[in-house]
């Protein structure tokens, strides 16, 4: 209930004009560029894992030549958008929640209000915009890096034929799948930012340092769970015919 009230206020703030530019740029850079090293590292290993594990599983059925299909579908449709979202929740979301909670408990949010600046517009709106716009880009980036990593693992480590692998990927992954991945990115980005800002904003002064920890923890867990569950529904919506 309280969350819905927050969502309403956040939406009003988000869409009532452009967010403060400097704040937006700062958060967009932090969310986008700042996440690159971590995301790169994680998608490389996730992509390789996908190949290795799928190979280990498929070998039992004698289906190792279908690796390209599996990596294409599993990776681009499902794994990389969710990965990007979970990483985003763990890194960006947690940072948002921690910084807002810290501002709450040290009375900086109240200071804004006293200075007649709407904290929703000044603090929440630029963060929402930044993450919503950055996450789809990160998703697209993860697609490329992850696919390259699973190609490398499949071809170099497992000895799968490279041509077949790519052909299968091209066969099974269409433009719509990429678009669906990016669409998921937009939804996840907005959700992560909203949930994280909510938990950060809700911290109370009397909670002190503990409040920051609680907000961070909740932001990470809630955004990860929400994204994974929502991914299931989005996939069911997009791919069940």
């Amino acid at each position, binding site marked *: 209930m309280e969350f819905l009230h927050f969502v309403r206020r956040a939406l009003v703030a988000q869409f009532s004009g452009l967010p403060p530019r400097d704040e937006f740029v700062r958060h967009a850079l932090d969310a986008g560029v700042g996440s690159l090293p971590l995301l790169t590292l994680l998608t490389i290993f996730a992509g390789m894992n996908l190949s290795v594990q799928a190979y280990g599983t498929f070998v039992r059925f004698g289906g190792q030549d279908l690796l390209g299909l599996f990596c294409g579908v599993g990776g681009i449709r499902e794994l990389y958008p969710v990965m990007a979202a979970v990483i985003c929740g763990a890194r960006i979301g947690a940072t948002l929640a921690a910084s807002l909670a810290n501002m709450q408990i*040290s009375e*900086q949010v109240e*200071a804004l209000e006293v200075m*007649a*600046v709407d904290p929703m517009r000044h603090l929440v709106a630029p963060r929402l915009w930044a993450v919503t716009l950055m996450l789809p880009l990160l998703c697209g980036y993860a697609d490329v890096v992850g696919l390259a990593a699973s190609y490398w693992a499949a071809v170099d480590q497992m000895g799968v034929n490279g041509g077949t692998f790519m052909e299968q990927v091209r066969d099974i992954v269409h433009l719509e799948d990429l678009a669906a991945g990016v669409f998921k990115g937009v939804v996840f980005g907005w959700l992560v930012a909203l949930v994280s800002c909510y938990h950060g904003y809700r911290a109370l002064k009397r909670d002190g340092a503990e409040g920051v920890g609680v907000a961070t923890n909740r932001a990470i867990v809630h955004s990860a769970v929400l994204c994974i569950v929502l991914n299931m529904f989005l996939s069911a919506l997009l791919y069940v015919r």
Partner: protein
Amino acid sequence: MAEQAPAITLERVCKSFGPNRVLHEVSLVLPAGKILVMLGPSGTGKSVLLRCLVGLMKPDSGRIFIEGEDITALDERRSADRDKLFALRRKFGMLFQDGALFDDMCVGDNVAFPLRQHEKMSETEIAQRVKEYLDAVGLKDVQRKMPAELSGGMRKRVAFARAIALQPRIVLCDEPSSGLDPVMSATLDDLILDLHRRYNMTFVVISHDTAEARTIASHIGLLYKGVLQTFGTKEQVLRSNGEAINQFFDRSTKGPIQVL
């Protein structure tokens, strides 16, 4: 007419949190250009009173007038009222307990922040004003520093500069002397008097420091268990010989104020 309206008028303000009665029928009238020191033991609703004044909290009943305008009638959730509330808040500057400086901005940007938000000024004008206010609080060469690099007293002085940046009519100070050594709190008292003389603002200072009350107050109030025990000019209050006020000034454990 607006010139003559008292800066702050409270009419039977009540506020509770659940069963906790924090403010009970608090009424007072503070003329413009005065310095009110609100004394009281910790946890007696002084900070809540301050937050009600700026509309950060809404009293359960009773009304609060700021220069004749009723701030309690404004509902933050309605956008028209919200604009009015924000317009009203521009009459205020507030010094928070630990300064509440924005961690991610340097000192100069912190002081410039309200100017950039509300005044249409060029950057050079802003820089000039920032320098003026930092000079007024006695700080030099700190503009580029981050709040984390400053000592507690310096943070409070920067927060002071930020609070007065828009030349507010009323400045609220939440425990300016808490956590400071006696010399630094005396310096802050001098600063309040100096700013009061220079800009003729109304001050409401929350404190439990009686020495501070003696030095700077023109009016003194004593809040205990949510009830305003005493209120009046400094001379009236000091002459009144009320039990509670005497206990407070004598630092005695015997009297109506009981530690829970």
